[in-house]
């Protein structure tokens, strides 16, 4: 918000001086350091185009679906029909009748648990497989096949195994997101520069030290590539499987609204799903950038 405010205050004097020939006080040249206008310009350049496109989409959408008889609601009728859902994500009237925040947080907590397990198991397995030439050769085709199985295809097996919704959901997340983590970690370990290993050998590092001081940091960028793909797949998996599992969660909410024929609520929920998925992706990417500061720079 402060950034936007800065943009405005910067842009205003210029607009004013162009639009009228009256005497306009020019901004004092030394008021800000010279970098700020450039920075503001960058922010402007990255914020304005998406805003324009979104506005355009909304307008086209409204024109196409504005007719009250239309089967699909336009933006304005969504605003009318689902106003409570949009403005108050925190209401809670018990049962399924809750704000979207609560549905999303249920789904997110499942992702948190299932994905943490996948991340941990995936990294450990990936390291083991990456460090063993034969293990990599033997397992790689298996992983390559398994990783293409769509999340929902695991659900029947998962239900047969666990019988209950919660563990089944966790398992589906786990099993869909583990493959990219394993594969990328293994590749990272495989691609370790021999020089780094030689440094470790000259210092006679123990295997644990070798792992934590050399291999793990060197493979960090690869590991995070895997984690980033994995978390995206977790989110795909959970939303889809909740639609079938029922009970709680954003996926179930969407299914429930479908049964109640409340298309406009579904659209609001979809926007939430998209935004949360995007946030998850950015979060892991940011974490990765932080964790592999030096490594990526070389």
């Amino acid at each position, binding site marked *: 918000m402060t950034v936007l405010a800065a943009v405005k205050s910067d842009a205003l004097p210029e607009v004013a001086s162009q639009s009228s020939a009256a005497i306009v006080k020019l901004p004092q040249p030394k008021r800000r350091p010279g970098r700020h206008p450039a920075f503001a310009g960058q922010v402007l350049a990255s914020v304005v185009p998406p805003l324009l496109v979104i506005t355009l989409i909304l307008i086209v959408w409204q024109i196409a679906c504005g007719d009250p008889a239309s089967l699909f609601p336009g933006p304005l009728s969504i605003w009318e029909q689902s106003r409570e859902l949009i403005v108050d994500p925190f209401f809670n009237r018990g049962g399924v009748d809750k704000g979207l925040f609560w549905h999303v947080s249920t789904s997110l907590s499942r992702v948190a648990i299932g994905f943490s397990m996948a991340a941990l198991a995936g990294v450990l397995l990936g390291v083991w497989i990456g460090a063993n030439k034969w293990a990599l050769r033997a397992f790689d085709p298996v992983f390559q096949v398994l990783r293409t199985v769509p999340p929902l295809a695991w659900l029947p097996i998962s239900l047969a195994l666990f019988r209950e919704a919660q563990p089944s959901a966790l398992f589906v997340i786990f099993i869909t997101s583990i493959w990219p983590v394993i594969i990328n970690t293994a590749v990272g370990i495989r691609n370790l*520069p021999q*020089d*780094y290993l*030689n*440094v470790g*050998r*000259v*210092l*006679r*590092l123990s295997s644990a*030290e070798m792992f934590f*001081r*050399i291999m793990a*940091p*060197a493979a*960090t960028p690869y590991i995070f590539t895997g984690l980033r793909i994995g978390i995206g797949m977790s989110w795909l998996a959970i939303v889809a499987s909740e639609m079938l599992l029922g009970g709680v969660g954003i996926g179930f909410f969407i299914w429930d609204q479908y049964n109640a024929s409340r298309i406009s609520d579904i659209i609001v929920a979809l926007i939430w799903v998209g935004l949360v998925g995007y946030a998850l992706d950015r979060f892991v990417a940011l974490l990765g950038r932080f964790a*592999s*500061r*030096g*490594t990526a*720079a*070389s």
Partner: protein
Amino acid sequence: MSSYLSIENVSVTFQRAGVVSDVLRSISLAIEQGEYVSIIGHSGCGKSTLLNVVGGLVAPVSGGVILDRREVAGPGPERAIVFQNHSLLPWLSCYENVRLAVDKVFGRTKSRAERHDWTMHNLQLVQMTHAAAKRPGEISGGMKQRVGIARALAMEPKVLLLDEPFGALDALTRASLQEAVSEIHARVGCTILMITHDVDEAVFLSDRIVMMTNGPAAIIGEILDIVLPRPRCRVAMLEEPRFNQYRQKVLDFLYSRHAARAA
């Protein structure tokens, strides 16, 4: 055989895709404590391989290396290596790179504070204390190589192995690093085995120059003793007739008698 470091009948062959290639054939070399020995030879003749045998990273098919009356088996910090491309760990700062080595080698014998001081002392030796907190990605190639040398020195090695330590540097940086190494050698008195491509560098720094013939199956062609007073001054060397004679001899070996085959 009572030399400090002796390389005895070392032969190395590599096998790649079923093709066996002789790289080194029966190399023997004796080096005294505190000596500065350079190995020079054309690219691909097996210099790095020989250095790695001493470092313990490559096992010879026959023969062996004895350092201070012990046979070398595998790598270890008493034979510190400065690699051709510095190979600092990029996720650690310069200080941490050196400290990793110090902690590993002196973890039991020195206190925390002593290890810190020893790390800083070695960075000081290569004049890199000002960049201690920087990561390798943030400093120049010459500075990285300095930190690599500091890391190796910090292990207090019996022998320091330098694999073309200045190869990737510009002439000015190279000259200043050569002086730094020369000064450290005088101060610390360590035994140094260095690989180089540069004839001037070899003559300027060494007590002896080992000239290798071209591979495959390279052997030691000739060994040249460099009898020049230390400390050596780069400018004064230009007027020193012996310096030029030595250069001539090495150049003659490399370019007249063992010219590189057309690559």
